[in-house]
């Protein structure tokens, strides 16, 4: 019966799976998505020092949240892997804190809306994710290391400085340069 993608290897296929889940509560699509992402979310939790059982539990929780929030997944806003990353990140933080992570509310009437022209000028989000991937390859080793430590070691700037035995300012400037480089590469011209 199915035109459901067999894997979620590509962002396009994962996007199709997401819309099947959102539109039809499609369990088969969810199983395919789960097979791809749950083991990666678990790996992410483990990398950040979470014990095995909790890592498994948080990965389950993340995918459950993907099911429940599927209708909020807005393909114009993020690629599926980016969206799932943000859910996993927040669940991990919330598991260790009494107050949930401060996040903006996109429906808040007090939110200052995006400028009109930005809506169509913006690169398609899947293209953008691809461009970010390409741009990451152009970072030098030091910049890439600083970015990796930020995402996978849960280290503050000063903790990274300590780990690498560098002045704090050097760490900040590596991160700043890495980020600037990525944003340049995808043609963002902010600020």
């Amino acid at each position, binding site marked *: 019966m199915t035109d459901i993608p067999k894997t979620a290897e590509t962002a396009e296929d994962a996007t199709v799976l997401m819309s099947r889940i959102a539109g039809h509560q499609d369990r088969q699509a969810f199983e395919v998505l789960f097979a791809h992402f*749950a083991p990666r979310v*678990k790996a992410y939790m483990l990398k950040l020092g979470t014990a095995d059982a909790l890592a*498994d539990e948080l990965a389950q929780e993340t995918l459950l949240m993907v099911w429940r929030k599927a209708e909020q997944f807005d393909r114009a806003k993020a690629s599926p*892997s980016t969206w799932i*990353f943000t859910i996993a990140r927040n669940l*991990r933080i919330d598991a260790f804190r009494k107050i949930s992570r401060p*996040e903006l509310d996109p429906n808040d009437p007090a939110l*200052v809306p995006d400028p009109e022209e930005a809506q169509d000028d913006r690169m398609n989000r899947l293209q953008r994710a691809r461009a970010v991937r390409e741009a990451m390859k152009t970072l030098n080793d030091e910049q890439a290391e600083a970015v990796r430590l930020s995402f996978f070691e849960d280290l503050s700037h000063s903790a990274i400085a300590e780990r690498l035995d560098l002045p704090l300012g050097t760490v900040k400037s590596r991160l700043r340069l890495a980020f600037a480089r990525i944003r340049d590469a995808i043609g963002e011209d902010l600020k």
Partner: protein
Amino acid sequence: MTVQHHIPDETLLSYAAGDLDDATSLVVAVHLALCPACREAIDVASDIGGMMLEDLAPVAMSGDALAHVLARTETAAAGERPVPMTTSQSSSPAASFVFPEPLRSRIGGDLDNVKWRRIGPGVQQFVLPCADGASQARLLKIAGGQGVPEHGHTGEEFTLVLAGGFSDGSLAFARGDVEWADPDVVHRPVADDGDGCVCLAVTSGPLQFFDIIGKIAQRVIGI
């Protein structure tokens, strides 16, 4: 008015990575609500996270993980934390909110609901509850023409304007603008004449005041 003074890029990156303490995350999130440009930057930073997640070597899930999750998709989310949809239902008309989310949720209301405490001439504060002690977040209400006593920091300081404005030397800060100061900076923000200024200030490490009144204030009120 477009925001002129932003959260530093490396702090945005760390927010996306999930490395910031609670109070610093709060000031970033509130700035994001007021600054479309930084929201764009955060989307890009989050793409880095998505890409890194994608590239991780998968680790096998426990045998019954999928079955567990599928079983839970059947049940309504009863008793579980609801997905944070909009928390903005309120009798107040939209335009009248001074505090954007997630600040309103944190204090349980808007500007009118803040229980201010006077800490010096023309200066009131409200200390916000935070999930960890790494940094402190507080609201400051400074009367027009008044300044926070000159101070340096042992850590970073972010000051986000929510209403009114202030100036520090030659720089002017209005709603949405953030002044960032590192431990080397000694500064003295002064609230604009007229209505003064309401801001969200986040500091890591205690402030260091340089005049005698500041020192006493520090001892007595523990800011």
